[in-house]
């Protein structure tokens, strides 16, 4: 007698068939198929909102699928929680970490496990964790407390947590979004060694470059559907993937008119400032930016970029030096004084600083203009004028939302950044301070942001573009300043900048002697 048997493919670690998952108003996954082979890195590529994270949250047991089936190791599974998933050897590292800042690495790794029941012999576990970390090249001190660690190290702790629980399948949700380029390379090395060990990895990303670098195969999603399923990376081209991802050709031709030298808008002289922890963060920064110019500030994260932006916008005091905008001192004043001098700020932290998540889009759009007519008259706010103002910006900058009364937290990353840029540009900036303006955005939104920044340059505003994305800086900036450990260690004309030279200086490669306080910034050429 013949029995129809579905023989599971032994090479498949995960098989998902016909996954459907709906959210109010959207079908986040619309009949998605996905498979993961043992010992491969499978990239899941797509724009923000394409349904990548949803699909993996379904796999991890965080969401229940509305339809479809999932097999892990050839067995049909129905995970009710990530706890079920990890029991089957499947662990996910989310974009936002779930770590307890005041506890040590080991304690965080052990969280939620039944052993040890009483944390007496924590030392023994320290050794276990250290050994596991060493085996996978995840350099992190098990006795360090989470708050002492960099974001990259915290991510390693999350991976360790999963490995310690026996994960053989690892899902990483946009792991490089929070990492500096060097840290990303370290992560890739770790992933390679783990894969060689038989671990299987799903790598969610919307960055074409890194997908090409790390993945064995790639599945592309767009608007909840798969547009390319598990194609070997060798058979793809960057342009082809981009087309599958956004459904049209991306030709990002940045048209830049030659830089027309205007008057000096921003002038910084010997500015020093401390970080939140009271350590020197800026050590004598001097620079000038002219109207109609974009100055790119390149550097690896944590070399003083955040503090630089905060000093310029009045959010941080400087311990020495002066900051003037159009000749008016704004250093050591309040954020209000900077706003009055038309200093616009596109902050690094869009949800924590750049917007109030539970207030409406309209309320967020008037953050910089609520003190002036027509939005307010004396002390009262004209709600009609607010609505007109907000609707005008929503249309001009194509902020996709049902209405301006919608809560801002419901906006996607790209739309939120459009909202922030719309508001800042509406304040008619003389100086625009843009920090990581495209981090975490999809290709379409990046193009919009770049265009808006260039329009501002055209309109004659001076712009400081602080970014860790060197390509972005080289594409947009007229001049490139390199920041390293709170000092400017190089200043180049973007037209004839040498990428290798910039990269070297970003990593401190040119310092022939340990820098000392009071060093004059070395300006090249």
């Amino acid at each position: 007698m013949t029995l129809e048997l579905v023989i599971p493919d032994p090479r498949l670690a995960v098989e998902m068939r016909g996954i459907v998952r709906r959210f109010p108003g959207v079908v986040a996954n619309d009949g998605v198929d996905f498979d993961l082979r043992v010992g491969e890195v499978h990239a899941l590529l797509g724009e923000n909102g394409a349904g990548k994270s949803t699909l993996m949250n379904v796999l991890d047991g965080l969401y229940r699928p509305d339809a479809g089936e999932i097999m892990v190791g050839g067995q049909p599974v129905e995970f009710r929680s990530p706890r079920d998933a990890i029991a089957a050897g499947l662990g996910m590292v989310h974009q936002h970490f779930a770590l307890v800042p005041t506890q040590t690495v080991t304690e965080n790794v052990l969280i939620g496990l039944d052993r040890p029941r009483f944390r007496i012999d924590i030392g023994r576990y320290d050794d276990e964790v250290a050994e596991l970390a060493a085996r996978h090249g995840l350099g992190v001190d098990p006795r360090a407390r989470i708050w002492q660690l960099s974001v990259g190290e915290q991510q390693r702790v999350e991976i360790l947590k999963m490995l310690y629980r026996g994960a053989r399948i690892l899902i990483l949700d946009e792991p490089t979004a929070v990492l500096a380029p060097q840290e990303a390379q370290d992560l890739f090395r770790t992933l390679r060694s783990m894969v060689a060990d038989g671990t299987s990895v799903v790598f969610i990303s919307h960055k074409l470059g890194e997908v090409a670098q790390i993945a064995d195969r790639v599945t592309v999603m767009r608007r909840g559907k798969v547009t390319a399923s598990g194609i070997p990376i060798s058979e793809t081209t960057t342009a082809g993937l981009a087309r599958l991802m956004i459904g049209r050709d991306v030709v990002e031709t940045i048209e830049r008119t030659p830089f027309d030298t205007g008057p000096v808008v921003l002038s910084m002289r010997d500015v020093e400032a401390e970080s939140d922890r009271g350590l020197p963060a800026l050590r004598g920064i001097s620079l000038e930016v002219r109207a109609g110019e974009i100055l790119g500030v390149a550097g690896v994260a944590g070399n003083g970029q955040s503090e630089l932006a905060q000093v310029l916008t009045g959010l941080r005091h400087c311990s020495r030096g002066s900051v003037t905008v159009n000749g008016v001192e704004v250093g050591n004043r309040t954020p209000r004084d900077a706003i009055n001098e038309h200093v616009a700020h596109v902050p690094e932290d869009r949800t924590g600083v750049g917007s109030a998540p539970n207030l409406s889009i309209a309320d967020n759009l008037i953050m910089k203009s609520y003190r002036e007519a027509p939005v307010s008259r004396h002390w009262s706010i004209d709600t009609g004028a607010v609505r007109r103002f907000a609707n005008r910006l929503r249309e001009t900058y194509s902020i996709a939302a049902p209405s301006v009364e919608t809560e801002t937290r419901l906006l996607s990353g790209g739309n939120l950044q459009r909202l922030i840029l719309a508001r800042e540009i509406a304040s008619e900036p003389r100086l625009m301070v843009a920090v990581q303006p495209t981090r975490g955005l999809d290709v379409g939104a990046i193009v919009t942001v770049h265009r808006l920044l260039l329009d501002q340059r055209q309109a004659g505003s001076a712009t400081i573009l602080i970014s860790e994305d060197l390509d972005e800086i080289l594409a947009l900036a007229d001049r490139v300043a390199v920041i390293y450990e709170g000092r400017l260690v190089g200043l180049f004309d973007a037209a004839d900048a040498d990428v290798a030279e910039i990269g070297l200086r970003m990593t401190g490669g040119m310092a022939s002697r340990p820098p000392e306080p009071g060093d004059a910034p070395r300006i090249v050429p």
Partner: protein
Amino acid sequence: MTTSAPAHQPDRKPVRLPWAILLERRLEIPRWLPVATTIGAVVVALVISGVILWFAGGDPIAIFIHIVRSSFGSLGVLSDTLVMATPLILTGLACALAFRMRLWNIGAEGQFLMGAWGASAVVLIPIVPAGTPSIITIPLMMAGGMAAGGVYGAIPGILKAFRGVNEIIVTLMLNYIAALWIAYWVFGPWSEAGFQLTAQFPKEAWLPRLSDYSSAVPAFSGLTVHLGLIFGLVAAMLVRFLLFRSRSGYEIRLIGDSPRAARYAGINVARNTVIVFALSGALAGLAGMSEVSGVVHRLQQAISPGYGFTAIIVAYIAKLHPYGVVVASIAFGALILAGREIQPSGIPAMIQGIILFCLIASEVVLRYRVRLERRMA
């Protein structure tokens, strides 16, 4: 694939129920949902209270009917309910305003007492000579009450804004200081013949009541509703305007949602902290004034049965909306009033407590979609 054994397997199997409760974060909260969950929570609370009453040997339906009848059943008791609601409206607004900015003012009780003291001081020190007409005395008492409450409220505001002191602890402790301050004055300088209360205020210091007009409108006779209710209603309108139609209100809401975003928008958070605390204290102080001038007509030790604490619940039930505060205050006024009718009088307090528990629990329904799902074996 071969699933290698995890490094650490759980020691014990969790107990599996045949079904599981699943919570999913809501992406969007429909407009009607907050109102629906509030009403739902109150209904659930009444059912739970009913079960407890039933176990205790009472007839829950009869008790609830009795509560409604004794607080809304006639013009007379309705008037009494509104008298009870008046201080709750003002203190509830005080809490709602502060809570909007995430300032946890637990000190409305103390600010209420200081407001009562400040208003009493106008006639007892006396600041105005005896026989001064109402038209001068009453505004001065209002100013005195609001000033005393406002200054008392500003203390935790200043400490928080400039020294980072936790406002919950400060406001809580200040309640005790205010109670003892009142005790000192009513036992000492202002004591009438050694009793722990002051002399009755002159008629000019009384807020007009409906019953004062019973000679013109006979139906008003015996109705104790006083002008303080109008203070409460006007204050609710003003607070609504302040929060949703003014620049300061915009700043308050922005700081409440994200202090870092507010600083980024150029808002002086410290200044707003002091102002909002002072305003909150002034509202609670006005409640104290309205109580001594409209109801008790003297200052005495037991002037508040905990209005300032009930106000926290009221503000919470109202979802911090000024008009919601008015509605919730009337409901709570009714419960307090019924407490005098029902034996033992702890029952309304129990119902209040259960309502609060259910409301807090209902937040889950507001934020998450709850699904009950059968487990497969």
